[in-house]
């Protein structure tokens, strides 16, 4: 129990990334139908690092970022979150409501609730797709939005999601708009180590006892 936090086998690595890929495929489709734009996604990357070493989602740790997170509980627990650099969040808001705040001071309730709803739909699509496919219970909890520096948000998520783990497993994927307009976001999923064995068992890739 918990002894293999740092030694995810290659097959398990592939499975987790494929699960993420499928889950995010659904989320990306949901985003496309919401906005009427086409989106692409990169291949998910996975890292297992000590919490202190997790690199930032964006190159500048203090970049103004709009993030929406949805923790989940059930057979597996953890955190899902979408990160949008400020300009991307403005674009998202403009696509959905026709309006976007010009700067931090003009952020209004509409913007907050728009981002909250986008996060709700994207994270739920992700969780539902994985839950349907594996039969694992993954229950979404209410989403919340943060508008702050990227690193402040990421570090808070790490602490909230996996505070009992010495190693943090992170699945990261880039989602971006196909057209030349820049809507470029990052998705993070951080499952707590406690439920991973259940996932592997369900997928038939648990290590032989």
């Amino acid at each position, binding site marked *: 129990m918990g002894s293999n936090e740092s030694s995810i086998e290659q097959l398990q690595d592939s499975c987790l990334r494929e699960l993420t890929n499928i889950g995010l495929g659904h989320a990306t489709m949901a985003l496309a139908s919401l906005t009427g734009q086409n989106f692409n996604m990169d291949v998910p990357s996975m890292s297992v690092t000590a919490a202190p070493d997790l690199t930032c989602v964006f190159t500048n740790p203090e970049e103004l970022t709009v993030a929406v997170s949805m923790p989940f509980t059930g057979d597996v627990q953890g955190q899902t979150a979408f990160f949008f650099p400020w300009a991307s969040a403005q674009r998202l808001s403009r696509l959905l409501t026709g309006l976007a705040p010009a700067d*931090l001071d003009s952020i209004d309730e509409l913007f907050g609730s728009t981002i909250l709803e986008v996060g709700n739909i994207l994270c739920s699509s992700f969780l539902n797709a994985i839950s349907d496919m594996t039969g694992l219970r993954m229950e979404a909890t209410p989403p*919340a939005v943060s508008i702050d520096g990227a690193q402040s948000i990421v570090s808070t998520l790490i*602490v909230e999601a996996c505070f*009992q783990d010495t190693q943090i497993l992170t699945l990261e994927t880039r989602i971006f708009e196909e057209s030349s307009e820049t809507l470029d976001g990052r998705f993070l999923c951080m499952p707590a180590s406690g439920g991973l064995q259940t996932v592997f068992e369900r997928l038939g890739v648990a290590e032989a006892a």
Partner: protein
Amino acid sequence: MAVATPTLVGMAEIHVHQGPALYSCIGLGSCIGLVAHCPASGVSGMIHVMLPEAFKDKPIDKPGKFVDVGLPELVKMMAAKGANTNRLVAAYAGGAQVFKIGADVSSRLDIGKRNAEAVKDLLEKLRIRTIAHEVGGSNGRTVTVDIASLTVKVRSINEGEKVLCVLRG
């Protein structure tokens, strides 16, 4: 005299120096960055704690992760460099709840608040005098320290940069 190289104090890290030093804790959300200084010896140290208490049933991988074991560890490391632990002064910032928009944000684990309370209590117990602190709220913070001038600065995206205090006892 050599120019001090800035020390980035990452999550769960503790760094100590003797003499002029620059420290920074970048992107504190619920975490807290704390700097301590011994005016007698010129020894200083900074810690970036994540959680109020270590888990009773788990080995401690990094003492700097937890307030309850990290602060005493910081004091110990400073003493090893020659600090007089009866004369330490400190300043700290962080412990925010950056997720502020949502129907149910009040039910989220407010680890930042618990971190801030734990730091305050333990500093009192350790008899370390707090010169200034800025905790709570919803802004993520970056803390930078220049030991040469004893200046502690805090910056956030919403409020810009300001001097938190001068670490003078």
